[in-house]
């Protein structure tokens, strides 16, 4: 079963003569371990597509299935629970909570999902150490560099061991090398843990992190081609373990 199945999905904003079709008849399937890079120019509809897959926006046409469940059948609280447990989000502007330390930012989704503080702290610490941020546990976001912030955001996105990671322009606020390193780190981590990743970006350099690259223009998928992930990640990645076994 696919982690994500986007079936003929459309999204139109407004009605009548002011209606704007942001996404039109898009179909896409993402399996466990897949790393899909969605590319396209600004205003092409890629972020709208990501928002719909992330259940933050409802499509006006078509269906989106997450692990076989039609998101249209779910209410707001069920969608919240799905986002908390099934998805990890990585944002362009990091979106860390400014009052919390790096460790506490990673603890947030764990606590929201019902973990005790002690357990959440242990998991957050382990995740940050894995991303070479063990020395930054007590740092506030304002004291972290852009790359460090994005690594904290990645740790947060992985905290609840989601099936799917959704990354929106993860390199836009990072310099070239840091952006590439951070994205590779995200993809390697996802690859090791057999999680699906969808990255939305117009940064061509991210092709090295993707297994598939799809192009969206004027709301329509216009091309799909293989990425360069295998060339760059295989040497770092051990045998993927089954995601089903994590749960």
């Amino acid at each position, binding site marked *: 079963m696919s982690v994500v199945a986007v079936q003929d999905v459309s999204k139109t904003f407004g009605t009548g003569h002011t209606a704007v079709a942001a996404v039109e008849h898009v179909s896409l399937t993402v399996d466990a371990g897949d790393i899909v890079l969605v590319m396209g120019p600004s205003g092409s509809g890629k*972020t709208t597509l990501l928002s719909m897959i992330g259940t933050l926006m409802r499509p006006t046409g078509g269906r989106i299935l997450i692990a076989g469940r039609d998101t249209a059948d779910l209410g707001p609280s069920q969608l919240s*629970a799905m986002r908390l447990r099934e998805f990890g989000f990585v944002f362009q502007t990091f979106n860390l909570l400014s009052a919390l330390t790096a460790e506490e930012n990673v603890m947030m989704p764990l606590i929201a999902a019902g973990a005790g503080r002690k357990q959440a702290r242990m998991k957050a610490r382990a995740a940050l150490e894995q991303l070479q941020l063990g020395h930054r546990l007590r740092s506030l976001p304002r004291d972290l560099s852009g790359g460090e912030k994005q690594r904290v955001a990645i740790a*947060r996105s992985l905290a609840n061991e989601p099936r799917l990671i959704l990354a929106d322009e993860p390199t836009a606020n990072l310099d070239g090398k840091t952006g590439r390193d951070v994205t590779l780190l995200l993809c390697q981590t996802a690859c090791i843990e057999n999680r699906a990743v969808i990255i939305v970006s117009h940064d061509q350099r991210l092709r090295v992190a993707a297994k598939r690259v799809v192009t969206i223009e004027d709301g329509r998928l216009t091309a799909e081609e293989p990425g360069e992930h295998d060339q760059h990640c295989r040497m770092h990645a051990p045998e993927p373990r089954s995601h089903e076994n994590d749960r």
Partner: protein
Amino acid sequence: MLFLALKNLVQEKTRLLISVGGVAFSVLLIMSIQGLYQGWSNKIGEYIRTVPADYWITQTGATDMFHTPSVLPLTVGERIATVDGVAAAKPFSGRRVAFEHNGRDINLYVIADDTENNVGAPARVVEGKPVPGKGEIIIDRVVARSENLRIGDSIPLAGRTLKVAGYSEGGYILSFSFAFTTKEDAESILQLPGATNFFLVTVKAGSNAGDVAERIEADPAVDAITKDRFVENNTNIVRDTFLPIILVLLLIGIAVGMTVIGLTIFTSTIEKAREYGVLKAIGVTNLQLYAVVVEQAITAAVLGYLLGAGLALAVSAAAGSYVPEFITEIRWWDAGWIFAVTVAMAVVSSLLPVRRLARIDPAEVFRS
């Protein structure tokens, strides 16, 4: 999510200080006013509680010592003493008398200290003579301090001059205070030949007090009022006079507290709207976010309460020593309900920020 609420609060220390300060001011206001109300209510009843009587017998229609004058012929007492079940019926004389001191009118409620019948003595004499002699008067310490009246000073009262012989406690009642003279001096000042104001009745052991009261009230000229009821009737003077004012001040205090918490939490919520959007996006439920906002408000309110309650105690003690009339009593019960009001204030003032929170669209987080 309490840790997020605490972190958010601590992050903005100035705003936290404003929140806590606003609530503290509100609690200080509410607690001081309530303390004054309680203190005055208690003071007004304090002396009456010490008077040994099961029933106060008044002229029909008189329900307390202050509103309606009660004048009863001494013969009424003799009659009551013969009622079945009455152990004793002793006359109690007293009424308000004013005198001028340093250009100010001072009101006393002069009571005849009838040593023969053991009626009308001060509740507690704290300095000077315990019993007034001829031409002497014992005044309350509060009025002595506020009017700078010392032992040995002379007071002109109803055409007579009495010398201050001592200070008593427990007899200060807002605009006037109890004072005690000999029975003879009181008769001269109060002008009650062959009469008194009340009779204090004690009921024989084993007699049914209610039945005794009914028998006394067979005389249409008198009412028999239980001691507790009589205390309450007198205490109600404070309630009737001050309760509406106190209620208004309490509402102002609550409004101040709610406004300050509400505004500070609301501005904090607006400033953090994006972060709340992020939390919504990653799957934190609206309910969990509401809890964060409410916890922030309650935490600020509890801190404000602790500061305000501490200030109220300190202000009461300090003000009481400089302004003798500032008599406060802050009871645990009052501290408890004011705490509950403070928490309720925090919860209600969170409603506006919570409404704002509900409208945050998590999809906004994808806009940079």
